[in-house]
């Protein structure tokens, strides 16, 4: 299986994502932002970082990149897409996911390990987890405070589209939301960084299951 990782100017978790994908047993493929081709990948990760310096708003400029047009088509056709941190922000700016990520309520960048619970696991990126699974995932962001209007929140809650919830909210996020998916459930955005918890040498390997999930979802044994 080939999993692509988009690289925007200012992405900085791209190499970490590529590494985690390789550890999960898939073939990592770099997708340069100015290149429209998705190179025939089977799934795409939009990694963390500060695309375009987070200038204007995180993700605001990146979403116009050439690669994003193809990514939208890929997503609309049901292809598995995962946005992590800045990737989540990019996907909301591109309207592939609802809502927006506001400045952390306490106004500080926060880098820590957040206890989280998996809620809905019927997505390609979470299929190896059980609903209710708890684990601790690294977070590192300045704008992780999930917001959507009341109607949208009610809708994603009702439709079981909250994928991940904080057990201790690090940023003021509505309903403690740490991750959501789209209606088709193939596009997932996570504020925590599973790729940073994908190697026991760093203290935790449980995040690797996110990448293994997409392999297993595609019918490939991890």
């Amino acid at each position, binding site marked *: 299986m080939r999993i692509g990782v988009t690289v925007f100017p200012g992405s900085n978790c791209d190499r970490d994502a590529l590494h985690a994908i390789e550890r999960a047993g898939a073939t990592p493929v770099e997708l340069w932002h100015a290149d429209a081709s998705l190179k025939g990948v089977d799934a795409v990760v939009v990694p963390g970082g500060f695309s375009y310096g987070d200038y204007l708003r995180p993700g605001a400029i990146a979403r*116009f990149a050439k690669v994003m047009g193809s990514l939208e088509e890929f997503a609309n056709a049901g292809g598995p897409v995962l946005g992590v941190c800045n990737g989540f922000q990019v996907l909301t700016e591109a309207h592939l996911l609802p809502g927006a990520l506001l*400045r952390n*309520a306490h106004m500080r960048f926060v880098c820590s390990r957040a206890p989280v619970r998996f809620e809905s696991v019927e997505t390609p990126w979470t299929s190896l987890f059980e609903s209710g699974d708890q684990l601790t995932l690294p977070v590192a962001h300045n704008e992780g405070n999930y917001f959507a209007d009341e109607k949208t929140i009610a809708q994603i809650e009702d439709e079981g589209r909250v994928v991940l919830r904080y057990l201790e909210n690090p940023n003021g996020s509505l309903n403690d939301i740490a991750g959501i998916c789209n209606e088709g459930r193939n596009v997932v955005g996570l504020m925590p960084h599973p790729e940073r918890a994908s190697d026991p040498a760093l203290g935790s390997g449980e995040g690797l299951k996110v990448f293994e999930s997409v392999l297993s979802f595609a019918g490939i044994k991890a």
Partner: protein
Amino acid sequence: MADTLKIRVLVRPKTGILDPQGEAVRRALPALGFEGVRTVHIGRLVEMEVESADEVEGMCRRLLANPTIEEYEWEVVR
């Protein structure tokens, strides 16, 4: 620069949207000895020199503001 227009765009958080920055400033003011400030909201100021104003509305809608959380207004200032 000949024939450019100066455009000013004001982008602000929509009413009802959490504005952590504005909140932080409002809370800080009394400690600095500034009383009597009821509300503070913080947004973005974008100033551009453009060749024509035709595309400004589109830029605001698609790029400079995020309609989910922000509203904007713009004007030609020169």
